[in-house]
């Protein structure tokens, strides 16, 4: 369980990124944070692994304030992937996937095993991929490696910041399908940040809509789309409202 208690984040320039955020994400839930850029969704995500510190309030994981934990150990216990994936260009797929275990002191054999399991989980053939470099992979393959890396240390919590942002639409839907299946069965707490309502509805068990540092709507995809609580959500759904409603109903069922 991840809990935000009255969290505010103000940047040195005087900009307030989050106002008084209170939120609960139960263990095993797949949550999507959706909003336009500047809505505070990424800031909220980064509070969980202390890439961002709260100005006020606190963030708790399993009842423990993240501020009381060593940031390095905390981050290694949480999976993390970002847009463009952030794979390290001079390391092979195997080295990238086993990065966190390596940092934590796993032996070369253990690292190899972890990398192999990671690639297989992503339905890629180890013999073909383990020793390739990121620039030798397609965009979709890189994305899969990025997710495999986030999952390598078998964390209970996985944070994904626009993980599919760099993909074209066709590939994106294909990968979304795949990940929904892969991640959905993993019983992990997953927080995914996206600006794409379609993605948020499709991927999440629960959607949190954010605007200007505040939560403006939350609930199951069907709740949010069927009965938009306010004008902002209506606007966000926009002309595709009908389509999204149908879609939410289908994927929710």
């Amino acid at each position, binding site marked *: 369980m991840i809990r935000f208690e009255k969290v505010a984040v103000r940047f040195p320039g005087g900009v307030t990124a989050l106002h008084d955020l209170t939120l609960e994400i139960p263990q095993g839930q797949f949550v999507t944070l959706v909003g336009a850029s500047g809505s505070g969704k990424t800031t909220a995500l980064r509070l969980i692994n202390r*890439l961002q510190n709260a100005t006020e309030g606190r963030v708790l994981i399993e009842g423990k304030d993240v501020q009381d934990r060593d940031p390095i150990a905390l981050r290694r*216990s949480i999976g*993390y992937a*970002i847009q463009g994936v952030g794979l*390290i260009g001079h390391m092979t797929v195997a080295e990238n996937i086993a990065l966190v275990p390596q*940092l934590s002191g796993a032996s070369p054999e253990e690292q190899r095993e972890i990398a192999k399991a990671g690639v297989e989980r992503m339905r890629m053939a180890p013999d073909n991929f383990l020793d390739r470099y990121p620039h030798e992979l397609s965009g979709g393959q890189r994305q899969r490696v990025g997710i495999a890396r986030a999952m390598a240390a078998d964390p209970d919590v996985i944070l994904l910041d626009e993980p599919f942002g760099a993909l074209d639409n066709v590939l994106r839907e294909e990968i979304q399908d795949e990940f929904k299946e892969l991640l959905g069965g993993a019983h992990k707490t997953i927080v995914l940040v996206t600006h794409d309502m379609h993605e948020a509805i499709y991927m999440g068990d629960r959607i949190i809509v954010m605007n200007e540092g505040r939560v403006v709507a939350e609930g199951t995809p069907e709740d949010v789309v069927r009965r938009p609580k306010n004008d902002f959500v209506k606007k966000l759904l926009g002309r595709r409202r009908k389509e999204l409603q149908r879609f939410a109903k289908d994927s929710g069922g």
Partner: protein
Amino acid sequence: MNSFFSYFTANRAEILKLTLEHCGMVSVAMSLGVLVGVPLGILLTRKKHLAPIILGATTTLQTIPSVALLALLMLLPLIGGIGFKPAITALFLYSLLAIVENTYAGIEQVHQPTVEAGRGMGMTDTQILTFIEIPQALPIIVAGVRISAVVCVATATIASYIGAGGLGDLIFRGVGRANNAMVAWGALPAIALSLMVHTGLTQFERRLQSKTAPNFKRIAVFFGIGTVLAFAVFGFLSPKLNAGKTIVIGSKPFTESEILGEMVAQLAESTGARVERKFYMGGNVCFESVKSGDMDAYIEYTGTGLVAHLKQPALTGSARVYEKVKHAYKERWDLNLLTPLGFNNTYAIAMRSTDAVKTISQLKGRGLRCGFDLEFADRPDGYPGLVKTYGEFCGEVKQMNSGLLYQALANGELDAISAYATDGRIRTLDLAVLDDDREFFPPYDAAVLAGPNLFLKAPGLEARLNALAGKISDADMTRMNAEVDSKKRAPKDVVREFLATLDK
């Protein structure tokens, strides 16, 4: 072309030794440059407010002319003096700019999302540096090292100026003697070294850019071995400092000074002493080194002592000048100026014989194209004083290395030059020394200037040097100069023959 190859055949061993010295200096300076420059560049990415200050400082260092930097470093304690230490310090300082700048720029341009992902996965700052930033910046860092190293190979030639050896020895000596084969054999290995360094490091950069994993352990091991080797070569070549009784004999950067330095060296060796030759050192370097004790002896001229070291107005009268200078050297710096060798290598004005000018006073108001060596042009006993005595006679004045003046005069590119009265080329190029009819030039009697420890280190040497007093006439000296400058013979052979005639 013939002389080009024969020079190599006759001097293989020396060319090889100087090339090794050159490599030693460059690799030690570059190792230090990398060891200091890369961490400094990294530090700047962490403390950005320091960047303008440090980069400004390294840029400023780069703008100091190399000869000036060497001359300044020479005067500092610890790293000062003559030989490898100040030379390597200067090369090291020059190497910093490109290395620091490229390290800084290389790390700054690392893809930020990759760094962010690394941080989010729980990398410590050190791990981000070693796993992401340095590997990604490495091609750019190596490019900085390459630029520095190529410049360093070229710059190291000026180390000769302060007696650090290297290929600059051949270049400066060759220019001084107008010996083109010698210049070429100094320049060619330097060019070859530059190209090798450039090509090797460019290949290395390419391999790094190909994105396959650079093996850091291997790079570190290679660099480590390289550094150790560099220091080993350096340690092997560099004179054992204060190692017992080695005598350091120097010379100024022209042929006559080298011949006489060689003569003192051979006499010292004949007493069984171990001698280190530091020939062809820059203008005032010999005097400074004898004062500081880095050098034991070189040949000085009484007129130079009077004007340049004692800062007194020029005087005439050989005996008077000698006595005055000798006492002042002893009193002020505890240096011994031995009895002059016999010849007077005064500054003189030379023209072509065919010009049929006899005296300097005939030149007044002629507006000639004059060429002077660098010292003569602004010393009070040089051109400025000459004008006061004889009036203006130059239309234009060109300053250049004294070795080049004679040929330029003979070729008709100049009308009058500053010359040394005993220079061998006056004879071989059919030049004429004008009569100093108003006795302007002070006497330049050559004598050994010895530091306080010379005779302690080589007890038998004092008698032998004193026996040389008055034994070298103007004609002897001119002839020996001509043997080296025109016949391109080695000073050591010319000196050996001369000493043999004295023994008879």
